[in-house]
């Protein structure tokens, strides 16, 4: 790399915020997925928007590729930087710049942790609805880049439904303002905020984010239903959706996951002998209405074959039920040395069949697959526990993962609902998009970043793209 680069970066951010020693850089060689590892050449942690701009403009002048990174909790290898790339860590940009109670919006820096924003909104009677299970660590910038979801996105919508405006620093160092304070595209043109959300750091760095806040529900009912087969639990999900009830959340866990949670410090009192449980939450303004819906759901659950349906009697009990769900990935970490958290989506009516097939695949390869997922959206997380030091097992995990993806695609689904493509799912992209559509994606990326310098090698498999020509008049940085 450029001999003077480290010195020039240090001049911008200060020595203490530049990581050069290999031992320090290795800390940044993974995200939340244990199967990919890459050590960046340099890690830089700017402390302000101005420093980010100065860093990116310096890298632009030298033509050096870089990778934005939030908390590094991503599950597709998206925030990894190769040798030859600089990792741009944004966690020090962690200020909430404004909470506008009357207009129900907030303006934040990208490094603000999701749960911190929620806590800051709460005294105003508001919430930031998207609640990934990693919310105590992940950043709003990372959420925007991945279009993160969470249990309560069933009713409230995913990140894309909550971003009104973005200030984005393009790879060439120029700033653009996407969207507008009211949420309409800025200038009335195409919805570039929508195009940026979920672009996995390929279109530039989000430096300022305007989010929509929603009123905190005043009434909440949380139900726990348990089933003697996964299939009936899946059928219960379909019954609720078809009845036109939109729960705030509708989550499923299978037995392997239940036991992992119950064996951990997050034990929530889930019945260990159940083949599956559903956690269903109803919320709203009016207690009577929420109760009526909860009763209707309980009825549907019983009719669909639930062994028992129980309502959380107190806020403490509700929190405990949720804690088990939100910490399930962590709890599963105890099952074996490594855990691959998978992510795919199927039509909700296909859940029973797809879950059956996944368990057959697991059996065929002798693997432990645990399911914990956003059932209401059909967003599966079949998680495979294994020991990555065993090459045979590692190979089986890869083949089984591919079969699971193929099953979901065949059912009319897709390869990722919230964790993104990153590097992990590049190989599956040609299974759902033809060469023309992949080429179109690459062409759009080049409009934002003509040299493909920000987060190179992610999302779109270059070899599978048909040729497109795209052009952007170059802006002066």
């Amino acid at each position, binding site marked *: 790399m450029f001999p003077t680069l480290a010195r020039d970066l240090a001049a911008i951010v200060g020595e203490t915020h530049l990581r050069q020693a290999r031992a320090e850089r290795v800390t940044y060689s993974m995200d939340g997925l244990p199967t990919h590892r890459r050590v960046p050449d340099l890690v830089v942690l700017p402390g302000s928007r101005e420093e980010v701009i100065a860093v990116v403009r310096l890298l632009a002048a030298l033509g050096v590729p870089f990778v934005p990174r939030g908390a590094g909790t991503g599950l597709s290898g998206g925030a990894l930087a190769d040798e030859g790339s600089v990792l741009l860590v944004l966690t020090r940009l962690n200020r909430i710049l404004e909470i506008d109670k009357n207009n129900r919006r907030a303006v934040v820096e990208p490094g603000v942790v999701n749960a911190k924003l929620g806590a800051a909104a709460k005294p105003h009677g508001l919430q930031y609805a998207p609640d990934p299970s990693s919310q105590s660590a992940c950043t709003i910038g990372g959420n925007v880049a991945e279009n993160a979801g969470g249990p309560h996105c069933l009713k409230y919508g995913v990140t894309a439904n909550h971003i009104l405006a973005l200030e984005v620093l393009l790879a060439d160092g120029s700033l653009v303002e996407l969207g507008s304070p009211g949420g*309409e595209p800025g200038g009335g043109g195409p919805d570039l905020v929508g195009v940026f959300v979920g672009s996995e750091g390929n279109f530039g760095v989000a430096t300022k984010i305007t989010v929509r806040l929603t009123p905190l529900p005043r009434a909440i009912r949380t139900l726990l239903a348990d089933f003697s087969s996964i299939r009936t639990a899946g059928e219960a999900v*379909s019954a609720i959706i078809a009845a036109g009830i939109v729960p705030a959340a509708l989550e499923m866990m299978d037995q392997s996951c239940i036991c992992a949670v119950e064996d951990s410090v997050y034990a929530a009192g889930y019945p260990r002998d159940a083949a599956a449980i559903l956690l269903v939450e109803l919320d709203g303004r009016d207690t009577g209405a929420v109760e009526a819906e909860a009763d209707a759901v309980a009825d549907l659950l019983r009719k669909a074959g639930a062994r028992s349906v129980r309502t959380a009697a107190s806020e403490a009990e509700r929190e405990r039920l949720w804690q088990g769900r939100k910490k399930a990935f962590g709890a599963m970490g105890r099952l074996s040395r490594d855990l691959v958290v998978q992510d795919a989506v199927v*039509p909700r009516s296909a859940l029973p069949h797809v879950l059956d097939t996944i368990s057959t695949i697991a059996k065929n390869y002798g693997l432990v697959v645990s399911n914990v997922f956003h059932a209401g959206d059909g967003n599966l997380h079949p998680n495979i526990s294994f020991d990555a030091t065993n090459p045979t097992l590692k190979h089986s995990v890869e083949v089984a993962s591919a079969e699971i993806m193929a099953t979901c695609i065949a059912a009319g689904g897709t390869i990722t609902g919230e964790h993104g493509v990153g590097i992990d799912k590049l190989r599956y992209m040609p299974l759902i998009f033809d060469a023309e559509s992949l080429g179109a994606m690459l062409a759009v990326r080049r409009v934002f970043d003509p040299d493909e310098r920000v987060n190179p090698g992610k999302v779109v498999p270059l070899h599978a793209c048909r040729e497109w020509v795209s052009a952007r008049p170059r802006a002066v940085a």
Partner: protein
Amino acid sequence: MTILDKVTALLGEGAVLEAGTDRVPRVAPGSPDAVALLLGTAHQEGWRVRIEGAGTWLQSDAPADLALTTRRLDRVPAIEPSDLTATAEAGIGLDQLRQQLADRGAWLAIDPPGLAGRTLGSVVATATAGPLRHGFGPIKDHLLGVTFVTGDGRMVQSGGRVMKNVAGYDLTRLQAGGFGAFGVIVLVHLRLRTLPRADITYVLEGAREDLTQVGEDIAAAGLTPAALELVSPALARRERWVLAVRLAGSPALVAADEAGLGAASGGGRFTPLRAEEAHAFWMRLAEGFAVRPVTFRIGGVPTASDELLDLLQHQLGDEWISASPAAGAIRWTGDASIDRLQRLRRTLAGLEVPLTLERAPWPQRGAVGHFGAYREGVGPLVAGLRRTFDPGGALVVATEGT
């Protein structure tokens, strides 16, 4: 060979319709592939093509060599009531689609302005949401994926037909509100809801400022109406301004919000409309925006609604106007000169409020553009995207004025 001869050779006689009053040949491809074939040829031959749906919303008057209408793309390949999704071709009329969905107990929760036969594709391309935006979000929130054909005839799919999807960049959102500048939408995957079991509309008449206050109180009380719309007297065909509140959902939810409505009405009394009255009220409102020459929308923050309504009244008059104050969205219709529209857009841009010109005769549309007065850095991106998806400039769209 004339253009028409070539098109006939390419797509068959059945694809050629009678030309409109401006004599521009009108072609109706019968499949997405036929659209791709036609645009590919147009790109090679240098033809300029304007895109039309049913021709009930945007004036069919853009100068072009050829008009491509999507009206024969009217199939509905899939309705899945148990998944609450559907796939429909872009040329289907919204009224027909609504009927087919209702037959299966499903509901597309959008009520865009325009006449009943307006095509789905035109609603998506122009992102024209109606009052239901208050409760169910903008048009883009109802889309799971689209297939579109670029100006040089390439067919691109984006998104899919499941509820969540982050595979690849979201080109669906580029098409929602792109006004066809980035391609012709041929197929749409939709997110549905079940038909609401209770659906009731209340109206309150009064002075505009008082009603805005009531609207704010309703939002502050945490009520969750499907629509909360402030409508000018002329559009509502009433003596005074009207605040219309539509409650839709489960009977329990609707009953709870009905009770809350009384408490939030600031002393005024909301009156319920009978089902057919409510239907007529919302339909009149939607149609009201399709008859005068110019219609535009602006979007600001909710607390600016009053100030923006004042500004519009001052600059253009507020005879035909409707606003969703809690969503910060205002729609205006009437007649307005190029100069006035441009001035208004500039003034609004200073307030960070975008103006989207939804309909206007070509002279105004061409000069003012659907979009414009972009925020920092957006212009080059839009230009780059336009060049990417229509490299030869075959698609005649008044993107940002001439």
